[in-house]
């Protein structure tokens, strides 16, 4: 995708790093009918989000059609260091994906 789809931030405080991410994605469940064509809109949703720090996978989120449009996620982990980065990647059922990096502040 050409446009940036992940808005992510990472903040360090008292030994804990908190990661926030907002992903721009339609998250089509496949249950909606298009008002223009009258046919069903095919499902398109993020299946997996992975968050890594220093090549270690911190979190793997597996999502289904119960996640809404533009999904949001936040979690914290012990450790982290200011200036280092956390990477976030999503992959959807159509094989599209995007990756973003957040510098820990």
């Amino acid at each position, binding site marked *: 995708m050409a446009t940036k789809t992940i808005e992510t931030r990472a903040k360090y405080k008292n030994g804990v790093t908190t990661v926030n991410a907002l992903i721009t994605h339609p998250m089509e469940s496949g249950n909606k009918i298009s008002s223009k064509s009258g046919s069903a809109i095919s499902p398109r949703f993020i299946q997996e989000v992975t968050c890594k720090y220093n090549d*270690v996978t911190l979190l793997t*989120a*597996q999502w*289904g*059609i*119960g*996640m809404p449009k533009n999904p949001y996620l936040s979690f*914290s982990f012990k450790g982290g260091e200011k200036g280092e980065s956390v990477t976030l990647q999503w992959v959807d059922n159509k094989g599209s994906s995007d990756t973003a990096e957040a510098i820990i502040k």
Partner: protein
Amino acid sequence: MNDISQKRRIILKTALITGAVSAAISTGLAYANLIVKSAWPKEAFNASTIEEALLELTGSNTIIPSPDDILIKAPTIAENGIAHITIKSDIPKTESISIFIPNNRSPLVANFKLNPSVISTIITRIKIENSGDIIAIIKADNKLYSATKKMRVK
């Protein structure tokens, strides 16, 4: 829809075969768990009941209700069927946090697998199709713990 159910049948068949093979091996269960963990658990997300989804996801559906150790923070009324939700687990060795909504077409909403360094709290947004329960299931030390919260959809 037909296409999906056909695909599902193939998957079910494959799952059955995998299951049979694993059962033949003494370390079968560990092996099956490994397979489930390595990819998006399609069978679990396609399951129509929590029991079925849990079995696909974790290999077990024995749940220990632990409302005192799991906190579900969510509004009582979900505006437009979307709710901001916080799930916090106080259970030691929490490995994963799953969110289930029995009244949704796909009861398994999300599954979060956590590295031991991750603090076992997840904040996210979910879709709720009808009023009813939200169930958080925590996997810790190969056991499943749950907590439930009722929500209304406006």
